């Protein structure tokens, strides 16, 4: 006889949500990074990538969305990882809150700048 499944409702803290997002962005990174590496590094080759190539690729809006999601998930994952490491060494509640807010603001500003750059596209000289 198998064990019976029991359902419980524990109080879930914000830390659980941080942990869950770490996993979700980790899986998304695999989805976005693998095609990126295979296309850019294996099929095209890094030495063949220049401004002209980027302009060609970004002419398609789907590639812009793809690149934004690639950068967004990897950057989000990295920032959450940095927060996790800092939490090991910062033990006061105020310190932890401050670090979380500072990293959050940094994350938002850099993500926004990245989004603007990608939406802005490539400005080729003389165009």
């Amino acid at each position, binding site marked *: 006889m198998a*064990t019976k*499944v029991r*359902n*419980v*409702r*524990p109080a879930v803290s914000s*830390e*659980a949500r941080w942990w869950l997002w770490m996993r979700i962005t980790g899986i998304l990174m695999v989805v976005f990074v693998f095609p990126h590496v295979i296309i850019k590094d294996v099929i095209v080759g890094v030495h063949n990538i220049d401004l002209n190539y980027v302009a060609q690729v970004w002419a398609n809006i789907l590639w812009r969305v793809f690149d934004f999601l690639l950068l967004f998930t990897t950057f989000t994952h990295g920032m959450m990882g940095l927060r996790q490491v800092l939490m*090991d*060494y910062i033990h006061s509640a105020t310190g932890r809150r401050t670090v979380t807010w500072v990293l959050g603001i940094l994350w938002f500003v850099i993500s926004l700048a990245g989004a603007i750059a990608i939406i802005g596209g490539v400005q080729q000289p003389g165009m």
Partner: protein
Amino acid sequence: MKVTLKVFRYNPETDQRPRYDIFHLEADPNDRVLDLLEKVKAEHDGSLAYRRSCAHGVCGSDGMRINGRNRLACKTLVKDVGTTIVVEPMLGLPVQKDLIVDMEPFFEAYRKVMPWFINNDPPPEKERLQTPEERARFDDTTKCILCACCTTSCPVFWADGSYFGPAAIVNAHRFIFDSRDQAAAERLSILAQEEGVWRCRTSFNCTEACPREIQITKAIAEVKRAIITGRLD
């Protein structure tokens, strides 16, 4: 065989800093590291301090760092660690004297997860029944002897002493997955806090250190999953 035993010595009341005492001993390959410590204490330096009780790997008193790894001195044979043996106290807990550490922070975390059976139903006439499969679900985590080898091998615990640590989570797991227990939600709520299971970085040090070979990292992952899904299966 000749063995060089290098022992960490420190008395916070008299010493400014720790030192290592070196003893050259005659030993049998099948001697245990605990036997060497007993020999030093009996024949060389009676002031050497360490914990020991059953000396058979059951009580968990003599957890210490032997050649850089947390082990029980009574379960570690000389032939398995070589002829130069360095013995140090476990990391992450304050040293009281020589190889003795203050275990209170460890037991404080242990008490927080309510490591006792909770069932508010009226007791049945005989025992509370459970199928062999239900018993097997938490069998691995019943083996813990609270030696602290796992918790004091955890790099997160070294940096953040308020992390519950692997041993407390293992002992919570033992009751969370017990079909007869009724306080799983409370225990999971405690472990879902900031200093709970989320601090685990799955470095597997605890699993490697456990002298009872408990699959600790797996148990921690099961607790994480139970908190997220609310399912105990």
